[in-house]
C-alpha cells in the first residue's frame, strides 16, 4: 500500500512541480542573495558558507512543509483516511518519504555545486555533505509532524515555524559543530553519531505522533 | 542577619544592581502570573453573563419571529 501511496505523491509532484522546485529554487536564491547583499569578499563567504547552507536548507524544508497536507485536508481525503484507519500509517510514511525525496534530496544533490561556488574547504565540505545527508531526513520527519499538527489550525504558517524550529535547533547546533570540528581538522564522529541516533529515534516514534495528530485534527 | 547595615544590604557587596534586578523581575513576573490567574476567573464569570444575555436576545428574536 505504501508504494501505491508513494506513487500517488510522486504523480502529484510531477504535476505540481512547484512543490519541489520551489524549495530548491528558494535554497539557491537565498544562497545567491548573500554575495549580493553582504558583499562578495571570498574569505568571509568561505567562513560563513556551511552555516548559511544549513540555514537555507532548514528554511526551505520548513517552508515547503506548510502545504503538505493542506490540499488533502480541504478535499476531505484525510478525513476519509482517518475513518478508514488502516490506510493512515502507510499514508504518513508515504508523505515522509516523498517529502524527503522532493525537498531533502534535491538539496543534498545541489549542495556540492553551491559549496564549490562559495569556496568551502574540502574538509568542511565533506562534513557538510554528511550532515546534510543525515540531517535532511530528520528535517523532513519533523516538518511533516509540524504540518500534521497545524493542519486544521486557522493560523498555519506561523505556528509551524514556532513549533518546529525548537525541534530543529539541536540539529542545527550539532551539524554546525560537526562542520566546525571538520574545518579545524578534528574528528567529528561524535556529532555524526548523535545525528544518526536522533534520526533513528525520530523515525521510530514520530510517525505515530503524526498519525495521531492527523486523527485529532479531523475530529 | 549577615549584613552590617541596611545600605550594605542594598549594595550587596557591589552586585546590588544585578541581584535586585533578578529579584525584581522574578517577583514582577510571579505577581503578574498570580494576578492573571485570578483575572481569568473573573473574565469567565463575565463571559457567562454575556452568554446568558445573548441567549436571551436570540430567544426574544425567535419569539418575535414565530407568529
Amino acid at each position, binding site marked *: 500500500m505504501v508504494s501505491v501511496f508513494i506513487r500517488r505523491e510522486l504523480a502529484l509532484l510531477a504535476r505540481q512541480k512547484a512543490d519541489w522546485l520551489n524549495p530548491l529554487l528558494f535554497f539557491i536564491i537565498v544562497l545567491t542573495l548573500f554575495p549580493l547583499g553582504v558583499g562578495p569578499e571570498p574569505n568571509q563567504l568561505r567562513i560563513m558558507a556551511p552555516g548559511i547552507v544549513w540555514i537555507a536548507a532548514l528554511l526551505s524544508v520548513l517552508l515547503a512543509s506548510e502545504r503538505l497536507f493542506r490540499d488533502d485536508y480541504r478535499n476531505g481525503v484525510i478525513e476519509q483516511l482517518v475513518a478508514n484507519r488502516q490506510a493512515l500509517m502507510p499514508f504518513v510514511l508515504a508523505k515522509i518519504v516523498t517529502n524527503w525525496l522532493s525537498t531533502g534530496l534535491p538539496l543534498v544533490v545541489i549542495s556540492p555545486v553551491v559549496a564549490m561556488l562559495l569556496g568551502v574547504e574540502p574538509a568542511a565540505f565533506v562534513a557538510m555533505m554528511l550532515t546534510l545527508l543525515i540531517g535532511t531526513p530528520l528535517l523532513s520527519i519533523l516538518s511533516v*509532524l509540524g504540518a500534521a499538527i497545524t493542519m486544521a489550525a486557522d*493560523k498555519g504558517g506561523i505556528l509551524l515555524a514556532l513549533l518546529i524550529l525548537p525541534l530543529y535547533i539541536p540539529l542545527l547546533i550539532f551539524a554546525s559543530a560537526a562542520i566546525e570540528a571538520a574545518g579545524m581538522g578534528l574528528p567529528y564522529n561524535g556529532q555524526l553519531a548523535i545525528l544518526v541516533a536522533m534520526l533513528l529515534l525520530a523515525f521510530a516514534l514520530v510517525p505515530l505522533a503524526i498519525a495521531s495528530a492527523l486523527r*485529532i485534527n479531523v475530529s | 542577619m549577615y*549584613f552590617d547595615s541596611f545600605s550594605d*544590604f542594598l549594595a550587596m557587596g557591589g552586585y546590588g544592581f544585578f541581584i535586585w534586578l*533578578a529579584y525584581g*523581575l522574578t517577583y514582577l*513576573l510571579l505577581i503578574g502570573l498570580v494576578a492573571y490567574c485570578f483575572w481569568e476567573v473573573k473574565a469567565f464569570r463575565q463571559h457567562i453573563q454575556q452568554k446568558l444575555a445573548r441567549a436571551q436576545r436570540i430567544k426574544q428574536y425567535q419569539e418575535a419571529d414565530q407568529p
Partner: protein
Amino acid sequence: MFKWLHPLAKPEILYHFCGRLLPWLMGSAVLTLLFGNIWGLAFSPPDYQQFDTVRIIYIHVPSALLSMATYTIMAIAAFTALVWQIKVVQWAVLAIAPIGAVFTAIALLTGMAWGKPMWGTWWEWDARLTSELILLFLYLGVIALAGAFSDRQTGTKVACLLALVGFVNVPIIHFSVEWWNTLHQGASITKFDKPSVHPSMLWPLLISLLGFYLLMLALFCVRLRTAILQNEQHRPWVKSALGGQ
C-alpha cells in the same frame, strides 16, 4: 492501585477538591517562598568565589528546576490524556503550561542577571542557555497551538501531542552541561548522594524550592478550576457552582 484517583476524573468533584486545597496551598506557598528568599538574601553567607551574586541562586535554581519539573508534569499529563482520553487531564495540560512558561522566563532572566557579573555577558549561545530558551519556545508553542484552533477540543488535544513530543528537550537541558563543555556549571544540588553545597546555603535554597513548588501547585489549582468551568459551562452544576460562591 490508582482507584482512589478515579472520582477525581469527574470534573465536578475535581473542581471542588481543588477548591478545598487552594487556600492551604496558596498560603503555605507565599510563606515558604518569602521565608526562603529572605533567609537567602539577608542571612546566608556569600560564596567565596561568587561573592554576593550567589544570592541569585535562591531564585535561579528553583525556577530553573521548576521549569523542567513543570514540563515533566505537563508531558506526563499529556501522555495520560492522549492514551486514556481523560478530558480533565487534557485541560490540566493547558492549565499548567503558562505557569511553566513564566518559570522558564524567570530562569532565563535571573540567569542573565547572574551571567553578566559572572561571565561578563548577558547572553551566550551556549547549549544549556539555548536549550532553556527552546523550552520557553515549547511552552509558548503549546499555548499558541491550543489557541489556534476554532474548536477548543481539537486545540487541546493537539497541544497535548506537542507537549509530549517536546519532552525530548528536557533531558537535553539537564545533560547539556555534561555533553558539551559550557560556561554553565554542572549539577551540584541534584547530585543527591553528596550535595556539594554548604548547608548554610543549601537550606534556604531547598526552602525556596519548596516555595516555588507550592506556588506552582496553587496556581495550577486556580487555572484548572477555570479550565473545568470553561469546558463544562453548558452543564447545570456549573451554574450552581458559580452561584454558590
